[in-house]
């Protein structure tokens, strides 16, 4: 320790000794606590440990974040089959055009549809899913150009390309002994299993025995072709626009 110089005002001798005592006390070193030596409680492993046989998921940057985004945006993610409970692939593939399908949540359905039919029988899963929508994550799919006939319809009715239009599938379009429920099931299954569907949303109007598929005018022809091919529809389906009624059929 270096020398300590004490400056004081001259006074009584008793005052000086008191001051010296106090200074010595202040200069004493602080008491130090010796920390206990850290020792693991169970240092000897008597038995080999156990672990889950399945490895944790491998989440790489963009692919993992895409998957997360899909799950976040719509918690009712349907399209991508969950790889949960399966060993993760060595190199997880980049997701293709990420398309999501959301379905009407149960709590938004009318009570009659959730609780079941009047006769007490429970409704099937397909009946519960009254509507869904499809959107693409990365700027949408490749747009097909509109035909001359449809272009004429658009200009004649002064339609905006991003205005919503509605394809109506009726019972008469089902064909092959199918009913509207079966076509609805095929449509709902199709958007999950087949390639990226055009962005659209759909619902079933059971009271009218109709399926309504909504999309932008610019994609209407493409969606219409998709519906006819994927669902093997018979006859013509009509495209309606709000305020103008049926404007086109295919």
């Amino acid at each position, binding site marked *: 320790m270096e020398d300590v110089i004490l400056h004081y005002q001259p006074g009584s001798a008793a005052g000086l000794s008191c001051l010296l005592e106090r200074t010595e006390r202040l200069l004493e070193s602080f008491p130090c606590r010796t920390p206990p030596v850290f020792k*693991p409680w*169970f240092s000897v492993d008597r038995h080999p440990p156990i672990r889950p046989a399945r490895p944790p998921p491998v989440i790489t940057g963009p692919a993992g974040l895409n998957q997360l985004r899909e799950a976040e945006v719509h918690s009712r993610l349907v399209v991508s089959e969950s790889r949960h409970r399966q060993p993760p692939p060595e190199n997880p593939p980049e997701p293709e055009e990420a398309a999501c399908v959301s379905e009407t949540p149960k709590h938004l359905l009318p009570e009659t549809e959730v609780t079941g039919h009047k006769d007490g029988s429970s409704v099937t899963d397909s009946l519960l899913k009254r509507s869904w929508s499809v959107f693409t994550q990365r700027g949408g799919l490749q747009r097909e150009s509109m035909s001359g006939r449809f272009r004429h319809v658009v200009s004649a009715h002064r339609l905006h390309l991003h205005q919503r239009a509605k394809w109506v599938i009726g019972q008469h379009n089902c064909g092959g002994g199918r009913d509207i429920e079966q076509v609805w099931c095929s449509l709902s299954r199709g958007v999950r299993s087949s390639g990226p569907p055009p962005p659209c949303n759909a619902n079933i109007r059971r009271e009218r025995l109709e399926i309504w598929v909504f999309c932008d005018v610019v994609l209407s022809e493409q969606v219409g072709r998709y519906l006819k091919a994927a669902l093997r529809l018979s006859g013509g389906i009509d495209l309606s626009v709000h305020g103008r009624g049926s404007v086109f059929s295919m």
Partner: protein
Amino acid sequence: MTTLTRQDLNFGQVVADILCEFLEVAIHLILYVREVYPSGIFQKRKKYNVPVQMSCHPELNQYIQDTLHCVKPLIEKNDAEKVAVVIMDKEHHPVERFVFEISQPPLLSISADTLLSHVEQLLRAFILKISVCDAILNNNPPGCSFTVLVHTRDAATRNMEKVQVIKDFPWIVADEQEVHMQEPRLIPLKTMTSDIVKMQLYVEERAQKT
């Protein structure tokens, strides 16, 4: 002060609930702090009145939940000595081990300190230590993964039945390669003592990580 056995009030279950909840938070935080997963999958949440990072990735969350769901019966029966979150390199050799040593008294003394709020305060200190532990640990090599090892009091085979509570989530005895670490550096992080549980957390870090 009242003295109870573990069977009274189903205290083992209460302790297991508290510890598993804590371990879930701790595992998420360790995976974030040690950069086992991209930081983009984590979101800031609040637990024990402190900010923590929790994964939002459904598969990872489910995996952690399944793991702890299986560990819970062992903690409940006081059969688990240690739960270790092991971070492994690409060759599946451990580079870091976060070891939670758990000790539960056979007789539980109920006092004011047993209040859950007091236990939560103690657990909060663990979380705070984990969130700053990267300052004293070396960086991990890229491409690390993790696993959870459970060290049991009895032979592993005797505990297999207890731990297999989820049908398609089997457990196995860990390989020597997954357990053995060369020249580990031992870093104590936190110790807590409460009436219902004693817990100690330390990290074993491999000397040469790369």
